């Protein structure tokens, strides 16, 4: 399958600051990619370069098979991080205007606007002025502007921030629907659960550099912390003795729960029956790495962590790392 977005050695500086450095990325057509990274990592700059709103100092990029997004703007939908609408304009008029700028024409535009407003539960807002809407409603209007022309590539910068859980679900369903329709979706987020729930693939940018570019399954495998969570049925049981079992490296208490760290070669499917045989559990489970763990480990572990430096990350996660501290 062809790639919807290809970035090669993309670099952008603002004065002395390097916003994006030698960034390589390929997003296949029809994929759902999540871009994560701390504030100021360079996500928005990367997105703006993909959209030809900003131009790179160095490097090459291809968007929907074209050398520049300028040649394919009508096939791209974009929801910027900075929300903004013409305050004095009526919602319906604004959406018609933006849809026309995206190449839509004819009488159907008005109909499409109504359908989409109904879809995001703003059916009665068509004739309202934008500044009469709440912030969340304005965000939904802007979201409609990004998807109304059924783009082949949908780029969403922090699409769910500022929305209540109900509206987050509405937006998420639309994103998934667009993905199922065949659109390539690239979205940036700070909310790791969204990335985990939605994406097949996650890219992380830190200090202008790509530090992670993997499928969710790959991330779970690469960043497996090799830990088992254990809670004995008898609170007074001597759990510390489990450290003597083969494959168990250490046992650490964390409140009512015990954290069993496994050795590099230990197989959890062999260790778990041995633990159960030793002390009857009320709960036992293999600890899965969350994206948040990965994110925080990379951010707190320093910018120099390379994509393939999995062992070091694993070690950081296993040893408690930032993730553990933050969970508490």
């Amino acid at each position: 399958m062809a790639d919807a977005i290809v970035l090669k050695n993309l670099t952008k500086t603002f004065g002395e600051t390097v916003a994006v450095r030698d960034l390589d990325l390929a997003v296949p057509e029809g994929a759902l990619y999540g871009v994560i990274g701390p504030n100021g990592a360079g996500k928005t700059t990367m997105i703006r370069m993909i959209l030809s709103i900003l131009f790179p100092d160095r490097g090459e990029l291809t968007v929907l098979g074209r050398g520049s997004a300028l040649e394919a703007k009508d096939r791209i939908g974009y929801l910027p991080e900075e929300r903004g609408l013409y305050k004095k304009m009526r919602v319906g008029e604004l959406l018609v205007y933006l849809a026309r700028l995206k190449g839509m024409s004819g009488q159907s535009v008005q109909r499409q606007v109504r359908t989409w407003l109904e879809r995001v539960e703003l059916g009665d807002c068509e004739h309202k002025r934008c500044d009469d809407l709440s912030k969340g409603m304005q965000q939904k209007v802007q979201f409609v502007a990004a998807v109304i022309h059924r783009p082949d590539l949908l780029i969403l910068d922090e699409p769910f921030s500022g929305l209540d859980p109900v509206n987050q679900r509405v937006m998420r369903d639309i994103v998934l629907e667009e993905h199922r329709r065949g659109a390539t979706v690239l979205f940036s987020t700070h909310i790791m659960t969204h990335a985990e729930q939605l994406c097949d693939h996650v890219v992380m940018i830190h200090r202008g550099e790509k530090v992670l570019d993997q499928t969710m399954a790959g991330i779970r495998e690469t960043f497996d912390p090799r830990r088992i969570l254990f809670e004995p049925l008898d609170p007074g049981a001597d759990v510390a003795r489990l450290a003597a079992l083969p494959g168990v490296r250490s046992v650490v208490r964390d409140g009512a729960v015990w954290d069993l760290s496994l050795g590099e070669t230990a197989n959890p499917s062999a260790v778990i029956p041995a633990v159960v045989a030793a002390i009857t559990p009320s709960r036992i489970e293999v600890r899965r790495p969350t994206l948040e763990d990965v994110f925080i480990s990379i951010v707190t572990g320093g910018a120099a962590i390379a994509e393939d430096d999995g062992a070091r990350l694993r070690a950081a996660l296993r040893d408690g790392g930032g993730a553990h501290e933050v969970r508490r």
Partner: protein
Amino acid sequence: MRKMLYVAGREFTTTVMTRGFIVGMLLTPALLGLVIFIMPRMMTRAAPKIEGQVAILDPTGVVKDALSSYLSPEKFAERRAKTREEIERQAPAELRQRAPAGADAAMRQSVETALGEVPRLAVTELPPGTEIEQAKAPLKTPLPKQGGDPNARLVLVVVHRDAVVREAGKDSYGTYDLYERGKIDERLVDDIHSGLREAIVSARLKESGLNPADVRNLTTVKRPESLTVTAEGERTTNTALNMLLPAGFMLLLMMSVMTSGQYLLMTTVEEKSNRVVEVLLSAVSAMELMTGKIFGQMAVGLLVLALYAGLGLMALFSFASIGLLDPILIVYLVVFYFLAAFTYAAMMAAIGSAVNEMSEAQSLMMPAMMVVMVPWVLWLPISREPNALLAVVLSFVPPFSNFVMLLRMTSNSPPPFWQTSLSIAVGAAGVYAALWFAAKVFRVGLLMYGKPPTFGTLIRWARMS
């Protein structure tokens, strides 16, 4: 191109549909038109009637009769007829020729009514030896509200004893004292002064053995109407019009250019501060957005120009003076409007994209304001000497060239064609340079937030992109 037109269309409609525009741009000409319509009707209201007494203490015995004759209703009517003739003579020949039938009579009537009914003044000589204080007393008694009391004393004149015959040993003649009541028509006092002057001078001349009529003839040189000689022929010089026409054209150009520029600045700052600009930039390129906005606002300026120029043309039509205007000047007005508006709008787009809010734009506005203010300051010297070195040089320095050249073209000695063409070419080059600079700043500035930039920052951005 289609997208650029959508941007232009939105820019135009959202600007002209705002209350501020409707009130400021449409209501003002409407009010002006109303005033033009109402004024002549208001002028038909007659000035208040003047009737009363001019008391004179005349020890010379020769001034009273001459003053009495000067202030007689017949002489007043005669002088007014002369004034009216003078007004008519001042009006351009085209006006007189093209005036519709009856307009002459109507104009005469309105002049008559504006001047009011001829005053009915009785010049009463007070007996010699009358106390001045006693003679002043009637000036203090109130007049009837409607005026028209033939016995009411309006003015007291006390002629000096030596006003006509010099006293021995003195180099100069005496004069007269004039006491007037409060709230008296100044024109009447002027008339009395003129009457006294004429009466005393005539009396002195007679006393010296000279004939006043001969002296008047000897000292009068009739001032002829000057003629403007051009290749096309000769025409009467109309000094007032020669000054007003350039000023009118300049005002039209300034007003339309500044209106469109100001709105462009406002909408650009609004789009930037609203953060809507990023959505727009994902749909159109920065260049399409900027040119769309400029075209939209130029249409707004053109609407303003058409409105006010239309009003001016209407005024010329209604005074039957349309023939005074060379139609080619309208064409040049539009050409120079495009050149000036493009340049000014490009500057406004650059400034608007660079700042975060309107208040920050003020510091960057100075160079842009200069574009308009310099020709305005130089309006008088340029219209007086349209072919002086300063005017010629500024005609080739964009962006001033657009204003200066239009001023020169509407003056009474327009520049040669090659200068006009060269000025337009230079103006077009100025437009290109301004657009080039603005496009660069616009692209960088739109997404820059934070510290308000200086003019130096804008130049750095232009280099950067």
